[in-house]
């Protein structure tokens, strides 16, 4: 993998490091943003009293578990795609498109979770549990949408060969962002459905 990077002209290896470093700082920054959100979650969860609340409709655990599995699989496919790109193997596109497809699947399941809960009469204004569930998943969903748009943008770019020497850093940065979205969802899943 390293050898393939170093085979590129020197500027491109440096560009890859620059781009990855910038992305790492960006993710660090966003981790602080979600850290603040998780801190709020932990503080406010104490206020709910019984967690999860009893006697009211809750978001569906099985559906959330399926959504988690779908998102994890999507991340794994993108990881494999980037591995291929790093070692100069062809065939990144099918993996990329499949990862994108699973990402869309996650978004659909997330939408279903919201519709289901709203159908049961639990609205964002209903109480603190609902504030937390809708608020936090909305914030996460914004990142899912940004991630999906970048994935679509990159798949178009991969097809047209637009990136040239920036191809690897573009692909790997978008994958890093998607893994981050994945990790945030896992924390949310653990917080709302497991613990």
């Amino acid at each position: 993998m390293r050898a393939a990077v170093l085979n590129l002209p020197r500027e491109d290896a440096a560009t890859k490091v620059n781009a990855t470093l910038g992305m790492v700082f960006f993710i660090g920054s966003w981790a602080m943003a979600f850290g603040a959100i998780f801190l709020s979650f932990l503080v406010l969860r104490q206020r709910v009293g019984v967690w999860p609340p009893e006697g009211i409709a809750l978001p569906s655990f099985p559906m959330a578990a399926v959504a988690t599995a779908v998102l994890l699989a999507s991340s794994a496919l993108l990881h494999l795609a980037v591995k291929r790109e790093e070692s100069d193997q062809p065939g990144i596109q099918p993996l990329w498109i499949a990862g994108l497809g699973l990402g869309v699947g996650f978004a659909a399941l997330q939408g279903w979770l919201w519709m289901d809960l709203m159908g049961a009469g639990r609205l964002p204004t209903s109480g603190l549990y609902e504030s937390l569930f809708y608020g936090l998943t909305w914030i996460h969903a914004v990142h899912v949408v940004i991630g999906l748009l970048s994935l679509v943008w990159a798949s178009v770019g991969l097809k047209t060969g637009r990136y040239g020497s920036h191809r690897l850093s573009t692909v790997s940065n978008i994958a890093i962002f998607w893994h981050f979205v994945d990790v945030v969802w896992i924390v949310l899943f653990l917080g709302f459905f497991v613990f």
Partner: protein
Amino acid sequence: MSGDHIHPEPTSFLSKYVFSHDHKVIAKQFMWFGLIWLGIGGIMAMMIRWQLANPGMPVPAIGEFLFPRTNGVLDPATYNTLFTMHGTIMIFLGLTPLMIGAFGNWCIPLMIGARDMIFPLLNMLSFWTVFVGGCVGFYSLFVPMGANEAGWTSYATLSTTVGAQGLGETLWAVAVFLIGASSIMGGINYMTTIIRLRAPGMTWGKLPLTVWALFLTSVLNVLFIPVIGSAMILLFLDRAVGTSFFTPASLMQGGGGGDPILYQHLFWIFGHPEVYILILPAWGFVCDLLSFFARKPAFGYRASVGAMTAVTVLSAVVYGHHMFTTGLSPMLGESFMLLTMIISVPAEILFFNWLHTLWKGNLRLEVPMLWAIGVIFVFGLGGLTGIYLATIGTDIFLHDTYFVVGHFHLTMAASALFGTFGALTFWFPKMFGRRMNQTLGKIHFWGTIVPLTFVFCLMFAMGYAGMPRRYFDHTSAEWLADLQHMNKMATHAAFLLGAVQLVFVYNFIKSRFWGPVAEENPWEVGTLDWSMPTPVPYYNFKEIPTVHTGPHEFSHPALGEDRDWIPMTEKLPT
């Protein structure tokens, strides 16, 4: 993407001056933007002072125009808006764009020997994001029910729908979020640039201290601005959607019930690093300027770097001292008190280094040097009074009084402002190729520092006597009536302070367009930014320079008689 290529120079007006990727143009955009907001925030301060000295009297000159409904008299809501927006504007739209936006952009690539920022497109987006944020903030002044009235801290529940029904508060949250996003973009860019694009030989131990300070500021920006971003999102959801993150159960109709103190935690986790975000660049300017104008190496370079790094780390763990009166657990309170006391130790080290840099120096009291010495003075006053606010026993008495107002205006506002003036007057000849008038500069300096010290020292006395912050009309409280003459004195001094700023505006604009043409290195310093021709070419360095000496090698015995400085690109003669 990378800043080490020579890009072709843009030719159209839009790509050259508006949507430019060139860090030097972006620096100037940030500079004009920040200066305009500094002026708006300053006018707001003058109106606040007018109300404090003459409650119920129509504001002279501009009152009839701004508040026709009340015939120029400030009503309580307008007064609340003024102090809220004064704070927000000065911090987020005045000082941050000037120090970090303008001088971060100007200094970093030129001082480390790079052709541009590492992500020029991100750099451009950073400016236009803060610009949109500024526009949203400005628009919020004109919506029905007025702008934010909850103070620059906007504590819940003053800031949730319980305390503020209007659109102004919501727009304020949006504006702060956008401005924060801009700072994060800048911070990522600065950090990556400094790590990756230093010229050969420009080791971390040879970086000018300005660059070190901007690096550490960027670290804080990248780590802590997101926290207020999250707080603003939650506040926005509470206001726009009706969630209950920050509204207690007793105030909610229907279900819910969140925690207003949580907002304070989130705000101050960001808010305390923010004061260091503002002061670190000023410290960096001072470290360098003192050495440049004392014609001596910066005393204790490594200790200064270590001290600034220690402050950066500690700034993350002291925020609780803003919350001593919220019913914080006493053990937590004492921990925060101890940590706050500890942060004064690295600050003292810097102070010691500054004084030692001056000691037996061949002082050139040019205008930038005066501002640098001014920072030492006002930061010293502000820092000393911080001890009283860090101590729980005294803070509980002084909390939310004018003592606090005096303290943070001297430490964070005046020091940062003086640092900005130092930087503006210092880099002006390289930025614009012209020189500012020295006499007017000195009048501006003395006309600023004397009334400014007077105003804020009076505030210590008034606060100690118990005058609370943010009261609309102190004279309505009998026990504050005796302080009114001090309020009047402070207002007169503040008006003088405000008037003297016009000297700066005149000098700045006149020198920008009609000043005498400056030499390429008028201050005779060796850092890379001054090794360049004026105006600096589009790609900065045709050949990336190789660095051999440190940034502060002044009056070195090996240099001989004819000059007391050496460019960083030359080797010291042996």
